[in-house]
């Protein structure tokens, strides 16, 4: 593999944003994901190569550490920040169609619930895995999810909730979405949830971690041959 791609992956994994960033101390004064991505484009690497062989492996590595409790939310956020900075260089290529997202996922915390940390983290991890994430924010009603699905045919939906009481709002949202969009796949997650609840309300996937959710999304992509 091209060594600059390995360095980009290392920057994302370790949350090294740019040259000025003091984090991580072991990479102080070195180029970050920002400068290296610009360099890689100048060297003639394609945006797809940078995404598939640099950024995504970096996010996968930190995601694996996170799922094994060898990294924590602050480290994940720094990795996501490094990834986002690099993605700014690739945005024009997404706009022109030179590279494509793996798919679109609409995420949101369900009505009555303002908790956003878990949702944000999962969203960042999905973006880092090559998915376009449309984040509807918090306290999202069924109507807003329906509008977003209408605007993004073929998308997947992810619902988040923190409390026993607010997760009950997932049931009606899932029902309304499924009635309207029969083939729509819906992921659910959040502190009080479990597989039994997911099955009972008719959602398609329950995940304890963002890694599991990404594996599920990628399996959908494989199944549809996108």
């Amino acid at each position, binding site marked *: 593999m091209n060594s600059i791609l390995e360095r980009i992956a290392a920057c994302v994994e370790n949350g090294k944003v740019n040259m000025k960033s003091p984090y991580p101390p072991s990479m102080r004064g070195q180029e970050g994901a920002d400068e290296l991505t610009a360099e890689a484009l100048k060297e003639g690497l394609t945006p797809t190569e940078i995404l598939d062989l640099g950024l995504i492996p970096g996010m996968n590595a930190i995601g694996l550490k996170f799922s094994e409790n060898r990294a924590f939310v602050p480290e994940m956020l*720094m990795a996501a*920040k490094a990834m986002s900075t690099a993605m700014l260089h690739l945005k024009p290529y997404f706009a022109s169609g030179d590279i494509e997202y793996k798919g679109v996922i609409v995420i949101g915390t369900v009505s009555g619930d303002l908790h956003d940390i878990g949702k944000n983290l999962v969203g960042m991890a999905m973006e880092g895995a090559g998915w376009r994430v449309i984040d509807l924010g918090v306290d999202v009603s069924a109507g807003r999810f329906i509008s977003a699905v209408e605007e993004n045919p073929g998308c997947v939906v992810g619902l988040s909730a923190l409390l026993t009481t607010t997760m009950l709002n997932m049931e009606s949202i899932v029902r309304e979405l499924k009635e309207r969009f029969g083939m729509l796949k819906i992921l659910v997650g959040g502190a009080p949830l479990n597989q039994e609840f997911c099955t009972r309300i008719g959602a398609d996937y329950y995940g304890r971690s963002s890694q599991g959710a990404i594996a599920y999304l990628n399996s959908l992509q494989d199944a549809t041959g996108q």
Partner: protein
Amino acid sequence: MDKRRYNPDFNQLVKIFRREKADRPVLFEYFMNGELFSHITGLSFEELTDPMDKIRMITRAFYLLGYDYVTIPSRYLTGFSFEAAGHEKKETVSLNEGAVINDRNSFESYNWPVPEEGSYRLLEDVTGILPEGMKVIVPGPGGVLENVIYLVGFESLCFMIFEDEDLAKDIFDAVGARLLRFYEIVSSYDSVGALIVNDDWGFKNQTMLSPDTLRRMVFPWQKKIVEAIHRNGKYAVLHSCGNISDVMDDIIEDMKFDAKHSFEDNIVPVERAYEMWGRRIAIMGGIDMDFLVRSTPDEITMRAGNILRLTDSKGYALGSGNSIPPYVPVENYMAMIYAATR
């Protein structure tokens, strides 16, 4: 409701804190809600405006329900708290909203509360209404980490820890020093038997910050707070939600809390927690909130009875995994404590 089966005796709770066997089952809750207090006392909690009237009613409800103490939220007692910008509140709040400190300037210009300027008179006045044998348990106005998150915002704090560690450390120290003073003052009152350090440290899968960061920024202050509580001869209960298994040794061996409260079946069920840590720290409550809300009263009484049998009331007090907010059905709550009071 006007009778309880046994007289209040705070010493029974002390036995739990010391991981000794109590003479009978002992109840513990972090806090309960006004609707329940109204239901139990037959009076309207919401119509009361005077803090002392509210404390009187809360005390009456705790007494009638069979507790050996009453928890009184610090907002009724002191007026000491860290003010942030407004947080929108629904059934949950965002940990990212309402931040007021984002750089050195806003840190230095923040209007830091002065614990000594709080009003603690009610801790003396409450002595006149406490039934014999009962003590007061006081939680703090949030903990060290909770208040820093409140002031900075969680995600901003995560970045600050890596990008401006000195500022992050200064904010933790500013909050920690003031909370320490609060606990020193409150634990000195005779009416107070124990204090709750209420500071959530965990998400469902792991601690909110790495254990290393917690050890550098948060735990040194918690250790000083527990030392201050112990110096005044009182007991320290940690109420901390989320998965904090990785730092339980710190809680027990380094900070030396007497008791741990807040358990969730999705993380470590309380029965398992008692097996894992019950010989080293008292285990309080733990009947899972989701279980408490969605199970039948019979199922709840059975589980509560089982854990009382499992623990034989040695280093364990019965209660919920978190608290009794209004969404816990009254009949389900009553089914839980029935296992101890029947």
